[in-house]
Protein backbone atom coordinates (compact mmCIF):
# COMPACT_ATOMS: atom_id res chain seq x y z
CA UNK A 1 0.00 0.00 0.00
CA UNK A 2 1.49 3.36 -0.99
CA UNK A 3 1.45 6.60 1.00
CA UNK A 4 -1.39 8.04 -1.09
CA UNK A 5 -3.64 5.06 -0.32
CA UNK A 6 -2.81 5.29 3.38
CA UNK A 7 -3.77 8.96 3.43
CA UNK A 8 -6.98 8.15 1.54
CA UNK A 9 -7.89 5.39 3.98
CA UNK A 10 -7.22 7.64 6.98
CA UNK A 11 -9.37 10.39 5.49
CA UNK A 12 -12.16 7.91 4.72
CA UNK A 13 -12.04 6.56 8.29
CA UNK A 14 -12.21 10.10 9.69
CA UNK A 15 -15.03 11.13 7.36
CA UNK A 16 -17.09 8.05 8.22
CA UNK A 17 -16.46 7.95 11.97
CA UNK A 18 -16.92 11.67 12.65
CA UNK A 19 -19.13 12.63 9.70
CA UNK A 20 -16.29 15.03 8.95
CA UNK A 21 -17.05 17.17 5.89
CA UNK A 22 -13.50 18.60 5.92
CA UNK A 23 -11.91 15.14 5.66
CA UNK A 24 -14.22 14.33 2.77
CA UNK A 25 -13.43 17.71 1.21
CA UNK A 26 -9.76 16.75 1.25
CA UNK A 27 -10.62 13.47 -0.52
CA UNK A 28 -12.53 15.48 -3.13
CA UNK A 29 -9.55 17.81 -3.63
CA UNK A 30 -7.23 14.83 -4.09
CA UNK A 31 -9.37 13.01 -6.65
CA UNK A 32 -11.62 15.56 -8.38
CA UNK A 33 -9.32 15.90 -11.35
CA UNK A 34 -9.34 12.17 -12.18
CA UNK A 35 -13.08 11.81 -11.66
CA UNK A 36 -13.88 14.87 -13.76
CA UNK A 37 -11.46 13.78 -16.48
CA UNK A 38 -13.07 10.32 -16.57
CA UNK A 39 -16.57 11.79 -16.84
CA UNK A 40 -15.52 14.41 -19.40
CA UNK A 41 -14.12 11.70 -21.65
CA UNK A 42 -17.18 9.53 -21.12
CA UNK A 43 -19.77 12.25 -21.77
CA UNK A 44 -17.68 14.50 -24.06
CA UNK A 45 -19.51 17.41 -22.42
CA UNK A 46 -17.66 19.52 -19.85
CA UNK A 47 -20.60 21.01 -17.95
CA UNK A 48 -22.57 17.76 -17.87
CA UNK A 49 -19.47 15.92 -16.68
CA UNK A 50 -18.93 18.44 -13.87
CA UNK A 51 -22.57 18.15 -12.76
CA UNK A 52 -22.22 14.37 -12.76
CA UNK A 53 -18.96 14.66 -10.83
CA UNK A 54 -20.76 16.65 -8.12
CA UNK A 55 -23.50 14.02 -7.95
CA UNK A 56 -20.84 11.32 -7.89
CA UNK A 57 -19.14 12.85 -4.85
CA UNK A 58 -22.50 13.26 -3.08
CA UNK A 59 -23.26 9.58 -3.74
CA UNK A 60 -19.76 8.68 -2.59
CA UNK A 61 -20.37 10.55 0.69
CA UNK A 62 -23.61 8.64 1.24
CA UNK A 63 -21.98 5.29 0.48
CA UNK A 64 -18.58 5.99 2.04
CA UNK A 65 -19.14 3.45 4.82
CA UNK A 66 -19.29 0.70 2.18
CA UNK A 67 -15.67 1.33 1.12
CA UNK A 68 -13.76 -1.40 2.92
CA UNK A 69 -10.25 -0.36 1.95
CA UNK A 70 -9.93 -3.27 -0.45
CA UNK A 71 -8.46 -1.88 -3.67
CA UNK A 72 -7.63 1.74 -4.27
CA UNK A 73 -9.98 4.52 -3.22
CA UNK A 74 -9.83 6.08 -6.68
CA UNK A 75 -10.92 2.73 -8.15
CA UNK A 76 -13.94 2.74 -5.83
CA UNK A 77 -14.65 6.39 -6.62
CA UNK A 78 -14.54 5.75 -10.37
CA UNK A 79 -17.00 2.91 -9.88
CA UNK A 80 -19.37 5.39 -8.18
CA UNK A 81 -18.74 7.85 -11.05
CA UNK A 82 -19.53 5.22 -13.69
CA UNK A 83 -22.71 4.18 -11.84
CA UNK A 84 -23.75 7.84 -11.58
CA UNK A 85 -23.17 8.26 -15.32
CA UNK A 86 -25.23 5.15 -16.17
CA UNK A 87 -28.07 6.23 -13.86
CA UNK A 88 -28.16 9.72 -15.39
CA UNK A 89 -28.16 8.25 -18.86
CA UNK A 90 -30.99 5.85 -18.03
CA UNK A 91 -32.97 8.74 -16.55
CA UNK A 92 -32.47 10.94 -19.61
CA UNK A 93 -33.42 8.04 -21.92
CA UNK A 94 -36.62 7.52 -19.91
CA UNK A 95 -37.32 11.27 -20.10
CA UNK A 96 -36.91 11.14 -23.88
CA UNK A 97 -39.24 8.13 -24.12
CA UNK A 98 -41.92 9.90 -22.03
CA UNK A 99 -41.67 13.01 -24.21
CA UNK A 100 -42.07 10.87 -27.32
CA UNK A 101 -45.06 9.08 -25.79
CA UNK A 102 -46.85 12.34 -25.14
CA UNK A 103 -46.18 13.47 -28.68
CA UNK A 104 -43.19 15.76 -28.22
CA UNK A 105 -39.96 15.37 -30.03
CA UNK A 106 -37.21 14.61 -27.55
CA UNK A 107 -35.70 17.94 -26.59
CA UNK A 108 -32.41 18.59 -28.29
CA UNK A 109 -29.95 18.48 -25.42
CA UNK A 110 -29.27 22.19 -25.11
CA UNK A 111 -26.37 21.72 -22.83
CA UNK A 112 -24.83 18.95 -24.91
CA UNK A 113 -21.66 20.53 -26.17
CA UNK A 114 -21.13 19.19 -29.66
CA UNK A 115 -17.53 19.79 -30.64
CA UNK A 116 -16.92 21.65 -33.87
CA UNK A 117 -14.68 20.02 -36.46
CA UNK A 118 -11.71 22.05 -35.17
CA UNK A 119 -12.27 20.81 -31.63
CA UNK A 120 -12.47 17.12 -32.55
CA UNK A 121 -9.30 15.46 -31.37
CA UNK A 122 -7.81 12.10 -32.32
CA UNK A 123 -9.10 10.81 -29.02
CA UNK A 124 -12.65 11.86 -29.94
CA UNK A 125 -12.30 9.96 -33.20
CA UNK A 126 -11.03 6.90 -31.32
CA UNK A 127 -13.81 7.03 -28.78
CA UNK A 128 -16.44 7.49 -31.46
CA UNK A 129 -15.81 4.02 -32.93
CA UNK A 130 -16.29 2.33 -29.55
CA UNK A 131 -19.49 1.25 -27.84
CA UNK A 132 -20.30 2.95 -24.54
CA UNK A 133 -19.07 0.00 -22.50
CA UNK A 134 -15.86 -0.26 -24.51
CA UNK A 135 -15.34 3.48 -24.11
CA UNK A 136 -15.74 3.29 -20.33
CA UNK A 137 -13.36 0.34 -20.03
CA UNK A 138 -10.76 1.89 -22.33
CA UNK A 139 -10.89 5.22 -20.44
CA UNK A 140 -10.56 3.44 -17.09
CA UNK A 141 -7.58 1.54 -18.45
CA UNK A 142 -5.69 4.13 -20.46
CA UNK A 143 -6.74 7.45 -18.93
CA UNK A 144 -7.17 6.42 -15.30
CA UNK A 145 -4.50 3.73 -15.25
CA UNK A 146 -6.61 1.14 -13.42
CA UNK A 147 -5.59 -2.52 -13.49
CA UNK A 148 -7.85 -5.12 -15.09
CA UNK A 149 -8.97 -6.20 -11.61
CA UNK A 150 -9.87 -2.61 -10.63
CA UNK A 151 -11.73 -2.06 -13.91
CA UNK A 152 -13.62 -5.30 -13.29
CA UNK A 153 -14.73 -3.94 -9.90
CA UNK A 154 -15.53 -0.48 -11.24
CA UNK A 155 -17.52 -1.61 -14.28
CA UNK A 156 -19.00 -4.66 -12.54
CA UNK A 157 -17.66 -7.02 -15.19
CA UNK A 158 -15.62 -10.23 -14.93
CA UNK A 159 -11.86 -9.74 -15.43
CA UNK A 160 -11.97 -11.93 -18.55
CA UNK A 161 -14.65 -9.72 -20.07
CA UNK A 162 -12.60 -6.61 -19.28
CA UNK A 163 -9.60 -8.10 -21.06
CA UNK A 164 -11.65 -9.05 -24.10
CA UNK A 165 -13.31 -5.61 -24.22
CA UNK A 166 -9.88 -3.95 -24.17
CA UNK A 167 -8.66 -6.34 -26.86
CA UNK A 168 -11.74 -5.68 -28.98
CA UNK A 169 -11.49 -1.92 -28.45
CA UNK A 170 -7.84 -1.90 -29.47
CA UNK A 171 -8.63 -3.99 -32.52
CA UNK A 172 -11.37 -1.57 -33.60
CA UNK A 173 -9.04 1.38 -33.20
CA UNK A 174 -6.23 -0.44 -35.01
CA UNK A 175 -8.52 -1.35 -37.90
CA UNK A 176 -9.74 2.21 -38.27
CA UNK A 177 -6.54 4.13 -37.59
CA UNK A 178 -3.80 1.67 -38.44
CA UNK A 179 -1.73 1.85 -35.29
CA UNK A 180 1.18 -0.57 -35.20
CA UNK A 181 1.22 -3.30 -32.55
CA UNK A 182 4.76 -4.31 -31.66
CA UNK A 183 5.25 -5.95 -28.27
CA UNK A 184 7.42 -3.91 -25.89
CA UNK A 185 7.06 -5.84 -22.65
Amino acid at each position, binding site marked *: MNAGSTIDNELVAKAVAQQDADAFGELVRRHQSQVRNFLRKLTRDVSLADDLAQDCFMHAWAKLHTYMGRGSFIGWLLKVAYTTFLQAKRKSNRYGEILQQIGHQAEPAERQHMPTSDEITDLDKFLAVLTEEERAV*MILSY*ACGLSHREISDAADLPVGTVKSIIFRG*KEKIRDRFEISNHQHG
Partner: protein
Amino acid sequence: MKSVIINMADRMKDAQDLKLESMFTSKAIADNGFSARIQQRLRRQLWLRRLTLPIAVLIGGAIAMKPLVGFITALPKLFSVLPASVSSNLQQVPISIPQLPTIMLGGMLVIVVVMLTRMLEE
Protein backbone atom coordinates in the same frame (compact mmCIF):
# COMPACT_ATOMS: atom_id res chain seq x y z
CA MET B 1 3.71 -7.51 5.59
CA LYS B 2 1.16 -7.63 2.81
CA SER B 3 2.13 -9.13 -0.52
CA VAL B 4 0.49 -7.91 -3.68
CA ILE B 5 0.05 -10.21 -6.64
CA ILE B 6 0.86 -8.33 -9.82
CA ASN B 7 -0.65 -9.66 -12.99
CA MET B 8 2.13 -9.28 -15.54
CA ALA B 9 -0.42 -9.36 -18.36
CA ASP B 10 -1.62 -6.02 -16.99
CA ARG B 11 1.90 -4.64 -17.17
CA MET B 12 2.80 -5.77 -20.67
CA LYS B 13 2.40 -2.87 -23.01
CA ASP B 14 2.65 -2.86 -26.74
CA ALA B 15 3.15 0.11 -29.05
CA GLN B 16 -0.58 0.61 -29.37
CA ASP B 17 -0.95 0.67 -25.58
CA LEU B 18 1.73 3.31 -25.28
CA LYS B 19 0.19 5.36 -28.06
CA LEU B 20 -3.26 5.06 -26.52
CA GLU B 21 -1.93 6.00 -23.09
CA SER B 22 -0.33 9.12 -24.48
CA MET B 23 -3.55 10.05 -26.29
CA PHE B 24 -5.73 9.46 -23.24
CA THR B 25 -3.43 11.45 -20.99
CA SER B 26 -4.95 14.78 -20.13
CA LYS B 27 -3.96 17.75 -18.02
CA ALA B 28 -5.01 17.76 -14.39
CA ILE B 29 -8.17 19.78 -13.92
CA ALA B 30 -7.79 22.70 -11.50
CA ASP B 31 -10.11 22.55 -8.50
CA ASN B 32 -11.44 26.14 -8.95
CA GLY B 33 -13.85 25.89 -6.04
CA PHE B 34 -15.21 22.48 -7.05
CA SER B 35 -14.37 20.80 -3.73
CA ALA B 36 -15.64 23.85 -1.81
CA ARG B 37 -19.01 23.52 -3.58
CA ILE B 38 -19.21 19.84 -2.63
CA GLN B 39 -18.33 20.67 0.99
CA GLN B 40 -21.01 23.36 1.04
CA ARG B 41 -23.62 20.90 -0.26
CA LEU B 42 -22.48 18.35 2.32
CA ARG B 43 -22.72 20.78 5.22
CA ARG B 44 -26.20 21.85 4.13
CA GLN B 45 -27.25 18.20 3.93
CA LEU B 46 -25.78 17.45 7.37
CA TRP B 47 -27.59 20.40 8.95
CA LEU B 48 -30.87 19.42 7.34
CA ARG B 49 -30.50 15.86 8.60
CA ARG B 50 -29.67 17.06 12.12
CA LEU B 51 -32.57 19.50 12.23
CA THR B 52 -35.14 17.05 10.86
CA LEU B 53 -35.60 15.07 14.10
CA PRO B 54 -35.98 18.01 16.53
CA ILE B 55 -38.34 19.78 14.12
CA ALA B 56 -40.39 16.58 13.68
CA VAL B 57 -40.54 16.17 17.49
CA LEU B 58 -41.71 19.78 17.92
CA ILE B 59 -44.35 19.56 15.19
CA GLY B 60 -45.54 16.15 16.40
CA GLY B 61 -45.68 17.44 19.98
CA ALA B 62 -47.60 20.55 18.96
CA ILE B 63 -50.12 18.48 17.01
CA ALA B 64 -50.50 15.88 19.77
CA MET B 65 -50.61 18.39 22.64
CA LYS B 66 -54.20 19.63 22.29
CA PRO B 67 -55.97 16.23 21.98
CA LEU B 68 -53.73 14.76 24.67
CA VAL B 69 -54.53 17.55 27.13
CA GLY B 70 -58.23 17.20 26.26
CA PHE B 71 -58.08 13.47 26.90
CA ILE B 72 -56.29 13.88 30.22
CA THR B 73 -58.71 16.54 31.45
CA ALA B 74 -61.65 14.36 30.39
CA LEU B 75 -60.42 11.40 32.40
CA PRO B 76 -62.04 12.43 35.74
CA LYS B 77 -65.41 12.89 33.93
CA LEU B 78 -64.97 9.41 32.45
CA PHE B 79 -64.51 7.96 35.91
CA SER B 80 -67.78 9.55 37.06
CA VAL B 81 -69.64 7.81 34.23
CA LEU B 82 -68.15 4.38 35.05
CA PRO B 83 -70.05 2.02 37.39
CA ALA B 84 -69.10 2.51 41.05
CA SER B 85 -67.39 -0.87 41.40
CA VAL B 86 -65.10 -0.23 38.38
CA SER B 87 -64.29 3.39 39.22
CA SER B 88 -63.47 2.58 42.85
CA ASN B 89 -60.95 0.01 41.61
CA LEU B 90 -59.49 2.47 39.12
CA GLN B 91 -59.29 5.34 41.61
CA GLN B 92 -56.98 3.27 43.72
CA VAL B 93 -54.49 3.57 40.87
CA PRO B 94 -52.92 7.07 41.02
CA ILE B 95 -53.21 8.07 37.35
CA SER B 96 -54.63 11.53 37.78
CA ILE B 97 -51.75 14.02 37.64
CA PRO B 98 -52.96 17.61 37.21
CA GLN B 99 -49.52 18.90 36.07
CA LEU B 100 -49.25 16.24 33.34
CA PRO B 101 -49.44 18.64 30.35
CA THR B 102 -46.70 20.82 31.84
CA ILE B 103 -44.57 17.77 32.58
CA MET B 104 -45.01 16.51 29.00
CA LEU B 105 -44.14 19.87 27.50
CA GLY B 106 -41.11 20.08 29.79
CA GLY B 107 -40.01 16.59 28.74
CA MET B 108 -40.28 17.45 25.08
CA LEU B 109 -38.30 20.64 25.58
CA VAL B 110 -35.59 18.69 27.43
CA ILE B 111 -35.36 16.23 24.51
CA VAL B 112 -35.09 19.08 21.98
CA VAL B 113 -32.49 20.92 24.09
CA VAL B 114 -30.40 17.72 24.42
CA MET B 115 -30.56 17.18 20.67
CA LEU B 116 -29.63 20.80 19.91
CA THR B 117 -26.72 20.66 22.39
CA ARG B 118 -25.44 17.47 20.74
CA MET B 119 -25.75 19.10 17.35
CA LEU B 120 -23.80 22.16 18.45
CA GLU B 121 -21.14 19.97 20.03
CA GLU B 122 -20.72 18.10 16.76
